[in-house]
């Protein structure tokens, strides 16, 4: 059987928190701190190799089995879907998806079909589908807050952390669409083939989560 597992970490904010969790769990993450030109970072004191990737790519790598494990936000999982095991809510990277509308507007007040701008069209679609409501969804790549200001959309579905950006743009969150936090995901075949190693990794992360709570 293969000796080392491979994990894909989401670059950026989640990366720092993931590394902090690993270190608290006793994993030496020096190679991740000093990557040099290397793309795969073997941890010296634990049979694990780490790669850093953009969030949707973490899912892609895990789904195809080229990485056994991954750490990725629930926002990306909801938007991209895929088939893998989502074994642990790591508790960090907390925020939420919210529906936000211009302050003072009555979003549910008329029968007119609403237009929603979002970076997350799939999340938006399944939210309104669960309400049995038809909406037009427009995908925006950059600052979604701009769309209602320009009159393109009646509301937005976006990640909200503090709500400050929304407020500054005259928007107000009226409904939570989903809670978001970082998740540990596992390839379905790896879970079966490397059960002992994967379980050890899950147990270490779970222990750290309990400690930090």
């Amino acid at each position, binding site marked *: 059987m293969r000796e080392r597992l491979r994990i894909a970490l989401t670059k950026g904010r989640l990366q720092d928190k993931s590394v902090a969790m690993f270190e608290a769990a006793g994993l030496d993450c020096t190679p991740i701190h000093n990557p040099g030109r290397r793309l795969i970072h073997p941890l010296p004191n634990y049979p694990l190799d780490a790669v850093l990737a953009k969030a949707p790519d973490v899912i892609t790598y895990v789904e195809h089995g080229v990485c056994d494990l991954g750490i990725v936000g629930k926002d990306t999982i909801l938007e991209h879907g895929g088939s*893998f095991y989502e*074994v642990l809510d790591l508790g960090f990277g907390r925020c939420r998806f919210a529906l936000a509308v211009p302050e003072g507007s009555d979003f549910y007040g008329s029968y007119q079909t609403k237009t929603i701008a979002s970076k997350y069209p799939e999340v938006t679609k399944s939210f309104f589908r669960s309400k049995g409501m038809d909406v037009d969804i427009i995908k925006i790549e950059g600052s979604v807050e701009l769309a209602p200001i320009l009159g393109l959309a009646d509301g937005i579905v976006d990640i909200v952390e503090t709500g400050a950006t929304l407020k500054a743009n005259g928007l107000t969150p009226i409904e939570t669409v989903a809670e978001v936090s970082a998740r540990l995901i596992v390839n379905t075949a790896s879970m079966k*083939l490397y059960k002992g190693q994967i379980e050890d990794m899950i147990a270490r992360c779970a222990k750290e989560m309990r400690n930090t709570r």
Partner: protein
Amino acid sequence: MPLKGIIMQYIPNTPEGARDRLFGECQERRRVQSALTHLFRQRGYSEMITPEEEFYDLFTMTGSALPQEEMVKIIDRSGKIVVLRPDCTTPIARVAATRLKDMVFPGRFYYNETVYRSSAAHRGQRSEIPQCGIELIGAKGVKADLEVIACACDALRACGLEQFYVELGHADIFPAFARRLSMTGEQTETMRSLVEGKNFAALSDFLDRFDRHSAAAVARLPYLFGGAEVLDEAEALAGELPALHHLRELYSGLCQAGYGEYIRFDLGMVHHIDYYTGPIFRGYAQGAGDAVLSGGRYDQLCASFGRPAQAIGFAVHVDAVADCLPTPAPAKVEQVIHYPVSRMGEAVALLDSKAPGTCQLSPCGDLESTLNMAREMGIPTVVILDENGVREVEV
């Protein structure tokens, strides 16, 4: 303007998900297919070739588990919706229950076909999936299950895989665990998908609102995978269940027959449990990111075509298996035969005496051209066949 002047723009790419397979890649796939079909024939299964296209209704009216967006659809001349076969079992059940309605069962059928799936863009998924598998129709009970599961192990072994597991589950286990909680249908489905995704944390959060004691057993369900010890734990949690007893019987039969080392369990296997009615199983091999084999017992399907018959079968995902194996190097051409037209018969006889793929006939008229061609193609030896007999020239 003369018609000759119009140049049609032709795009030489293949559609996403489809691909050309060349040389070694073909051998790779064919080798797996021939190992499998050889085994299946040996075990008394007869081949069935069903159409590449079938009516859409065939797959939607019979409770088969495939979502409609994954089927490749065509509107035929009469306006009916036709799909490219998304699965091989349903057509075989159709034939077994209708055209073969007078056949004395059990019937043993195998197929070596391609199924078609329409998948999301840019996910690296294939739309043409070669599958090779068996269906044992009209047989129930431990012996029928054992025969098919043993065949699944032998199938993966015959392909040349060394490290693989066949993992067993049972469609009745999840309902037996779920029955202890009073839930709406919707809640049960939420719970099923959490178990399917081994979404441990979300499952235990979800179960917080139910009776703690009964919920504790369900919360363990996704953890119950691995060796036969999970059967003991399941029994400790849920008591005697017919499904657990059945799995135990299968396990002891498989161990006695020498298959024990390949067998694992996942009692949280809940994929398509509305379709399957008994044991469910999947094969995992080192090197493949997803199951390379999947199957199970489906006792309701044939009845939906008018002939009730218990059935069990599996499919091997040929390319997924082939990708785990080393690609064979295609045979290297070592010789080219130069001959006059009058000696064609001798040339062909000589060619046929060589190892396959190592020798070719030269299409050139004169020896000089043959030598040039051999040089360009990197063929080291030209065999000259003429009135003086056969001699070899190094290029």
